[in-house]
C-alpha cells in the first residue's frame, strides 16, 4: 500500500464520485509540484471542449497579465484540469488559477496548508492530507481555527447543496486533531501587542507623553490584561473576606508583630550552643588534668594518661591508670582531688597511651606514693554561674508574652500569615498587569532617547521627526544607517540591494550570486551595525544572495524576468515577493523627501527601475 493516495487516483476517485472541483491541501510546495508532474506523466486528458474553455480563459487573462503567456504549466492545466497554487508561483498565475476555479473549470487545485488564508476560492470538496503544519521551522498541529478555515472552503454557496471535506491519510497524520478541529469550537484569540520603535515615535509625535498611558490602555492587549486583573481582583476580594476575622487586635499590625516575635522566640530557643560550657568546677580543674598528674578518684590514687573529649560524652574525659594497674575512662568531673605531683613519662598517640613498660613503671610508682600528698587548691570561677540569669527576656522587646490576645494570635497566626502573603502576591501581579504595557513603552522610549531620537522630556528631536516615517521591521537599523550616512551618494542598485537584504526574512535557500565588491563591503558594514544593535532590535538575515539578485535586477535594466529567475534556485513567487517587499522598504525611504532629498531621489529611481515586466502587472 502506498503511504498516501496517488494524486492522479485521488482526482479520479473525486471525479467518479462527482466531488470535483476540489482543493487538495498538501504539506509543501514540492508536494504540490510533484502532484502536477504526476499528471504530466499520465495518458489521457479532459474532453477537448473543456481543454478549449480553460485555454480561452487563460488567454483572456494573459491580456491583463502578460506573464501568464508561455507559463510552463499552462498546457498541463488545460489538458488535465488540475493546477498547483502556492507561494512559489507569481501572483498573476495564482490569480489565473483562482479565476479558473471560480468559473468551475478546474477539477482540482493542489495548495499548501501554510497559506490557507490566501486560498480565497471555494470548491465542492476540500481534501486534507495532514494534521500539522510548518510554523517557524517547526511542525505544530493545526489549530481548530485553521482546520475550520481549510474545511470552510468546501461547499460553494449557490452552486452546491453540500460541501465535503475528505480526509486521506499520509504518514504522520493524526485523525484526532482533525476530528477535533472539525467538530470543535475555534480557539480564543489573544492580543499580540508589541511596542515597536516607530510606534513610540509616532505616538509621541501626535500626543503628549501624559496621554500615552491612556492610549495604551485602549489596546486589546490591555483589555485582555484587565480581564485577568478582574479575575485576580475577585480572588483578592475573597482573601479580604477571609481576612476579616484577623483584623487589628491589641497592636494594629499584629501579624507582622507576631511573626517577628515568633522568629525571635525561635532564635532564642536555639541559642543554646551545641556543646554547653563545662560547669565552673570542672572548667577550673581542666588545665591541671594533664598526662602524668596524680589525682584521687573514689577508689584511690590514679595517674592521668590523657585528656580527651568524646562526641557522646558531655564532659571532658580522662584515661587514667589506677594504683591496682587497671586502666579506665573517667569523666573529668569525677576527679576528687588533684595532687601537686606529676609522674614523668613519654606519651604515645595510641592506646595504651604509653609504652607497656612505662605502664608497669607507673603502676609501681603509684603504689609507692605517700598518703599525704599535697593537694592543689583549685578555685572555681563562681561568676560564670550567674550567666544563665543574664539571658535577655523577650518581654523587654515584645509585648506579646504578656499581651491579652496572645493565645488568639498564636492560634490564628499561621492562617493569617498565609492569607496575607497571598494578598501581597496578588496585589503585585495586578500592578504588573496594569503597568506592563506602559513599562514596555518606557523601555523603548528610553532606548530611543539614548540614540538621540527623543529628548529627555520625550519629545521628538529633529532626527526622530523623520525617523518616525520609517514604519517597517528593522526600523532602528535603517534609521541608524541613514544617520551614519552609510547611504550617502549611494547607487540606486546598491541601496535596493541592501534593503532587500534587510527586508528578506525567508530562509529558503537560494543559490550563490556574483555581486559587486561595493555591495559586499556594504553588506559587511551593515552586518556590523546590525550586530551592534542586536540588544535593541533583532538583526535581519542579510542574505547576500538576495541582495546580489536585487542588485543585478536594477543594474542591468535589460535583464528579463525569465533570465533573472533562471539565475537563482529561489522560486519565482519568492523572488517576486522579495522585490515587492524591497520596493515597500524603499518607498518608506522615499517618504524622507524633506529631510534627506537625495536619498529619497535614489530610492525613487531604484523603485522605477525595479518596476518592470512582472512587477508592473499588479498595483
Amino acid at each position, binding site marked *: 500500500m502506498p503511504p498516501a493516495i496517488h494524486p492522479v487516483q485521488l482526482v479520479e476517485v473525486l471525479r467518479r464520485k462527482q466531488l470535483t472541483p476540489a482543493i487538495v491541501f498538501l504539506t509543501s510546495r514540492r508536494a504540490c509540484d510533484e502532484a502536477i508532474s504526476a499528471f504530466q506523466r499520465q495518458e489521457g486528458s479532459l474532453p477537448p471542449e473543456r481543454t478549449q474553455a480553460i485555454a480561452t480563459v487563460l488567454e483572456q487573462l494573459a491580456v491583463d497579465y502578460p506573464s501568464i503567456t508561455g507559463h510552463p504549466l499552462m498546457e498541463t492545466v488545460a489538458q488535465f484540469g488540475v493546477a498547483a497554487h502556492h507561494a512559489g508561483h507569481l501572483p498573476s498565475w*495564482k490569480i489565473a488559477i483562482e479565476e479558473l476555479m471560480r468559473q468551475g473549470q478546474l477539477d482540482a487545485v493542489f495548495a499548501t496548508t501554510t497559506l490557507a488564508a490566501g486560498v*480565497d476560492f471555494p470548491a465542492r470538496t476540500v481534501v486534507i492530507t495532514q494534521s500539522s503544519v510548518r510554523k517557524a521551522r517547526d511542525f505544530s498541529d493545526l489549530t481548530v481555527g485553521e482546520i475550520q478555515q481549510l474545511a470552510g472552503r468546501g461547499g460553494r454557496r449557490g452552486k452546491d447543496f*453540500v460541501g465535503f471535506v475528505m480526509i*486521506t491519510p499520509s504518514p504522520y497524520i493524526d485523525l484526532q486533531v482533525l476530528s477535533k478541529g*472539525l*467538530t470543535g469550537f475555534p480557539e480564543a484569540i489573544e492580543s499580540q501587542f508589541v511596542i515597536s520603535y516607530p510606534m513610540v515615535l509616532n505616538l509621541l509625535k501626535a500626543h503628549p507623553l501624559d496621554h500615552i498611558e491612556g492610549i495604551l490602555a485602549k489596546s486589546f492587549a490591555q483589555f485582555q490584561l484587565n480581564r485577568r486583573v478582574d479575575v485576580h481582583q475577585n480572588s483578592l476580594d475573597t482573601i479580604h473576606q477571609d481576612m476579616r476575622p484577623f483584623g487589628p487586635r491589641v497592636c494594629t499590625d499584629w501579624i507582622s508583630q507576631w511573626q517577628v516575635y515568633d522568629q525571635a522566640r525561635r532564635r532564642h530557643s536555639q541559642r543554646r550552643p551545641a556543646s554547653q560550657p563545662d560547669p565552673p568546677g570542672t572548667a577550673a580543674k581542666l588545665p591541671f588534668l594533664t598526662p602524668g598528674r596524680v589525682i584521687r578518684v573514689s577508689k584511690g590514687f590514679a595517674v592521668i594518661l590523657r585528656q580527651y573529649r568524646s562526641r557522646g560524652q558531655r564532659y571532658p574525659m580522662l584515661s587514667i591508670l589506677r594504683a591496682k594497674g587497671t586502666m579506665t575512662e573517667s569523666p573529668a568531673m569525677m576527679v576528687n582531688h588533684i595532687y601537686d605531683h606529676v609522674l614523668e613519662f613519654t606519651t604515645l598517640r595510641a592506646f595504651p597511651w604509653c609504652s607497656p613498660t612505662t605502664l608497669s613503671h607507673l603502676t609501681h610508682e603509684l603504689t609507692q606514693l605517700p598518703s599525704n600528698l599535697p593537694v592543689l587548691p583549685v578555685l572555681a570561677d563562681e561568676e560564670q554561674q550567674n550567666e544563665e540569669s543574664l539571658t535577655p527576656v523577650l518581654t523587654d522587646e515584645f509585648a506579646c508574652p504578656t499581651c491579652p490576645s496572645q493565645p488568639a494570635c498564636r492560634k490564628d497566626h499561621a492562617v493569617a500569615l498565609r492569607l496575607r502573603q497571598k494578598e501581597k502576591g496578588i496585589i503585585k501581579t495586578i500592578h504588573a498587569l496594569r503597568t506592563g504595557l506602559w513599562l514596555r513603552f518606557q523601555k523603548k522610549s528610553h532606548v530611543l532617547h539614548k540614540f538621540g531620537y527623543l529628548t529627555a522630556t520625550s519629545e521628538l528631536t529633529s532626527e526622530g521627526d523623520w525617523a*518616525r516615517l520609517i514604519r517597517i521591521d528593522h526600523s532602528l537599523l535603517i534609521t541608524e544607517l541613514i544617520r551614519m550616512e552609510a547611504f550617502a551618494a549611494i547607487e540606486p542598485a546598491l541601496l535596493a540591494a541592501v534593503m532587500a537584504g534587510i527586508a528578506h526574512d525567508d530562509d529558503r535557500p537560494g543559490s550563490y550570486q556574483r555581486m559587486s565588491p561595493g555591495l559586499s563591503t556594504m553588506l559587511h558594514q551593515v552586518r556590523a551595525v546590525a550586530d551592534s544593535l542586536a540588544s535593541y532590535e533583532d538583526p535581519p538575515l542579510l542574505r547576500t544572495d538576495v541582495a546580489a539578485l536585487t542588485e543585478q535586477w536594477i543594474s542591468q535594466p535589460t535583464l528579463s524576468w525569465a533570465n533573472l529567475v533562471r539565475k537563482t534556485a529561489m522560486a519565482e513567487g519568492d523572488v517576486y515577493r522579495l522585490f515587492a517587499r524591497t520596493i515597500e522598504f524603499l518607498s518608506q525611504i522615499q517618504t524622507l523627501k524633506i529631510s534627506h532629498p537625495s536619498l529619497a531621489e535614489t530610492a525613487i529611481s531604484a523603485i522605477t527601475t525595479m518596476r518592470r515586466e512582472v512587477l508592473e502587472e499588479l498595483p
Partner: protein
Amino acid sequence: MTNEELTGLLQALPLRQLHDLTRGRVHRHFRLGKRRLIEVILSLPPESRSLLEVDVLKPKRQSPHQPSLENSPQPFVAKPTQKKGRGKAKLSASLEPPITVSELLDGLGVPTAQPFHADPWQIEAISKLATNDVIASVPTGSGKTYVAIEATRRALEQDQTVIYTSPLKALSNTKYMEFSQLFGADRVGILTGDRKDNAQAPLLIMTTEILRNLLYDAASGQIDVRLNTLGLVILDESQYLADPERGVVWEETIIFCPSQARLLLLSASIGNPQDLSSWLTSIRAVPCHLIHHQNRSVPLRAGYLHPDGVMVPFFRTRDITKGRGFTFHPETKRLLAQYEGETLGHRNRR
C-alpha cells in the same frame, strides 16, 4: 453472497480469525461466541458486510497485493437490507447505526439558480451598521463579502469615504478587481506600499499596514486622503489580530480609527468574539454589535479516503456536529488501523 454461503465460510474459520475480521465492525466482538458472532455478522449493514466478505475471501485468493479499483469487487453495491436479527437490535441500542456511503453522498448536486436572498444575519449586520460598529464572526464562506459590498454601497450613497483593508496584498488585488466591476473603476482606488492608484476615490482598498500609516500621518497633522469624510472602515480577516507578527497593526488601526467612521470587522470563526466586541464598545464612540454564528450556509460532511481509493464516511453521523464530541465511523476506524499497521511497520502491528 447469500447468507448460507457466508455462514459456511465463517463457520470454517477459527474463532481467532473471526475476531480479527470483526474488529472495528462489531461492538464487543470478543464477548460473543462463534455462533452469536456469525449471527451478528449476518445482520451487519450491507456496506460493512460486503467489505467483510471481501476480507473473508482475501486469504483464499493468496494474493496479498492490493486489488486495483477496476478489478476489485465493487464494495459499495447496495444490497437488500438484511432482516434485522436480535443481535443487531441489541448492538445499536445506544447508538444510531453508522451512515452508509450512499447516505453520505446523498443530495450531491447543483442547486437551480435562485434569486439571491440575503441571510438574516447579513441584513442585521448591514442595518446595525447605521448606528453601531459591527463584528461579524461567521464561518468561512457564509457570505461576509456580501455584507462588505452592501455596507459599502450604502456608505457611498451618502457620499462617505470607505476604506477596505485585507491582510494580504493578493486579497487586496482580488477585492480591487471585484469592487471595480461593481462600483466602476473610477470610484475605486488602491493604495499599496509605494503606489497610489486613484487615491481620491471614495472607495479605497489597502492593506491594514497602509491604513495604520495613514492614521498615524493624520494624527500628526498630515492628511493626504479624505479621512474627514471617512464613513466606513472594513477590516477583512480580522482574526489576524492574533497574528504574532502583524496582529499589533490591527489593534493600532482600531484604536486610531476616527470616531465618526463605522467599523466593520469581518472575521472567520474565533473563540472569543464577545471579548472583541466588548473591547470595541469600551473604546469606541458607539456600541459594537456582535454577529456570531457557527452555521454554514452550505452544510459540510466529512469522508475518509483510503489510499487504495476506497471511500467511507468519516464520522458515524452524516453532518458534522459542533461541540458534541465525535465518533469515528467503524469503517474509518478499521481502515485507519489497517493503514497504520501497514505504514508503521512490524512493531505496531497487532
